[in-house]
């Protein structure tokens, strides 16, 4: 495969089960570098579990997960994050009892001060890194219009602001691939649009690849380059939004056989 269009993420035949239920049952998908890929499917299709499997949060039963060519199946979550695949959660995980700015600083990689010995022995290096990261954090907060709240506890933010904070925080971790689990859920439409515009901008300016789970079909149709459809633990289809929207299998998956144009579902 050439570098021109190498896949950022290749998932082959991964499975994950809870007791007797196979939530993910041999899912296979590819996310191209620099793309914005949407992962859709009815409730219970295994989308979030698939996120958990590829980011190391759920035990992976067989199969392979490659991030930019590196095999990462069964790696610990923190190692996967450090390699450049960073995720957000369906139920936003703002670190509520920490100030917004600390949420941001926390995510920055390569802080020597996260090692006890360095805190004592290399205070200068720790402070230097902290200053550099703080500037970067302020810039990002400004871009997400959160700078006014920098010193407030994250728990005082509104639900929508927390989603923005989670995205901004994930960006502090210098991701190559961002996995967003329902970034628009519970966000008002104008803020949602802003979030989608941020995704487009980050893709063009920073070259970040996106894979996002979303139920808002309008957002998926207008903003994704590629749509992957899951049902019952498997990927049943993937392709450009229009092609997917017109496919009968998708409509079957959502409605159990009744034919209704997808635009009406949205």
């Amino acid at each position, binding site marked *: 495969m050439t570098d021109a269009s190498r896949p950022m993420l290749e998932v082959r035949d991964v499975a994950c089960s809870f007791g007797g239920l196979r939530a993910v049952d041999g899912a296979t998908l590819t996310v191209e570098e620099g793309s914005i890929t949407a992962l859709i499917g009815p409730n219970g299709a295994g989308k979030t579990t698939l996120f958990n499997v590829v*980011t190391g*949060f759920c035990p992976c039963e067989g199969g392979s997960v490659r991030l930019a060519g590196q095999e990462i199946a069964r790696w*610990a*979550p*923190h*190692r996967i*994050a*450090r390699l450049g695949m*960073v*995720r*957000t*959660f369906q139920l936003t*995980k703002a*670190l*509520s*009892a*920490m100030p917004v700015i*600390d949420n941001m*600083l*926390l*995510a920055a*990689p390569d*802080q020597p*001060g*996260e*090692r*006890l010995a360095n*805190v004592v022995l290399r205070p200068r290096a*720790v402070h230097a*890194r*902290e200053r550099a990261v703080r500037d970067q954090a302020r810039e990002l907060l400004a871009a997400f219009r959160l700078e006014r709240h920098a010193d407030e*506890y*994250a*728990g*005082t933010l509104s639900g929508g602001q927390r989603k923005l904070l989670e995205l901004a*925080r*994930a960006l502090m*971790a210098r991701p190559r691939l961002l996995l967003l689990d329902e970034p628009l859920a519970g966000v008002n439409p104008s803020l949602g649009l802003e979030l989608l515009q941020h995704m487009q901008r980050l893709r063009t300016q920073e070259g970040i690849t996106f894979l996002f789970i979303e139920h808002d079909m309008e957002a998926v149709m207008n903003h994704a380059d590629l749509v992957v459809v899951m049902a019952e633990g498997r990927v049943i289809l993937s392709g450009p939004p229009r092609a997917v929207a017109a496919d009968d299998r998708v409509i079957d998956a959502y409605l159990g056989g009744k034919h209704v144009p997808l635009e009406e579902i949205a």
Partner: protein
Amino acid sequence: MSGPLAIALGGLTEVGFWSGVGVLAGIYTLLALGLQINVGFTGILNFGQAGFMAIGAYAMAILVIDFRVPFLLAVLGAIAVAVAFAMVIGMSSLRLRADYFSIATLAAAEAVRMFAQNAQGVTGGNQGLYGFDRAWADASRQIQDWLSAIGIGDANGLLPLLLVVWLVALVAIVALRFLQRSPWGRVLRAIREDEDAARSLGKNALRFRLQSLAIAATLGALSGVFLALNLSFVNPQAFEPQASFIGFAVLILGGLASYGGVAFGAIIMWTLLEATRFVDLPLSDTQIASLRFVLVGALLIGLMAFRPQGVFGKRQEMVLGD
């Protein structure tokens, strides 16, 4: 005024009473500082702090008595043993959910105490160990000489221990505050808030929790060494789970996520526990001993009702934490 109150006031004005309270408060400050870094800053529910205290006391005593190790080296050795034990518990149990981990720590601490009670060849069983504090007795006399040179008398010989235990406690508080303000401390707080969020941002949560537990074990071992010096002997009764729970009461009194609050909580706690000795009630000694804990319990309930964050805790962190 009637009799009982007069007796109480009489006891409370004695220097000897306050140096005794001060030593115990210093010992429990060290113990509860370990709980604070675990419970208040990392979200680890450690119910086994008494176990680390026991290991510190016994390991120090055994190293001095059986292996003739110099006292200070024996203290370092005792800390090393406590940390090693913490790593064994941590690596086997820290992956468990918080409540299961707390049961594991409680059980481990009880296992240590049972071992101390029954391995008579090593620990002297219920007879305990003594004869480990000659080096300290010399140092203590030296400090007393210095004190009397500047005109400070020592009623019950506890002033040197009081000074040293609080010096160590203050150094520990300053060091812990310094660590807590560092990026390392920030990761601990993040793990307390949401471990999965921390892991998703590239933090190896297990490593940080093990380090937090190792620091708690170090502080627990130090408190055990001072307890041994205070009693002049080591026996299993000193390390019943009660010790961990008094540590928790100190923690709640002072407030979660405040190192300074721990010292305050320990002083209030031991003043209450010891001052009740002077109250002359028509009750037997065991009844009075129980009454002390009833009093402390009532105080904690009142505190939870009116100031749940403790005296120095931050209310916002408590409310937003959930």
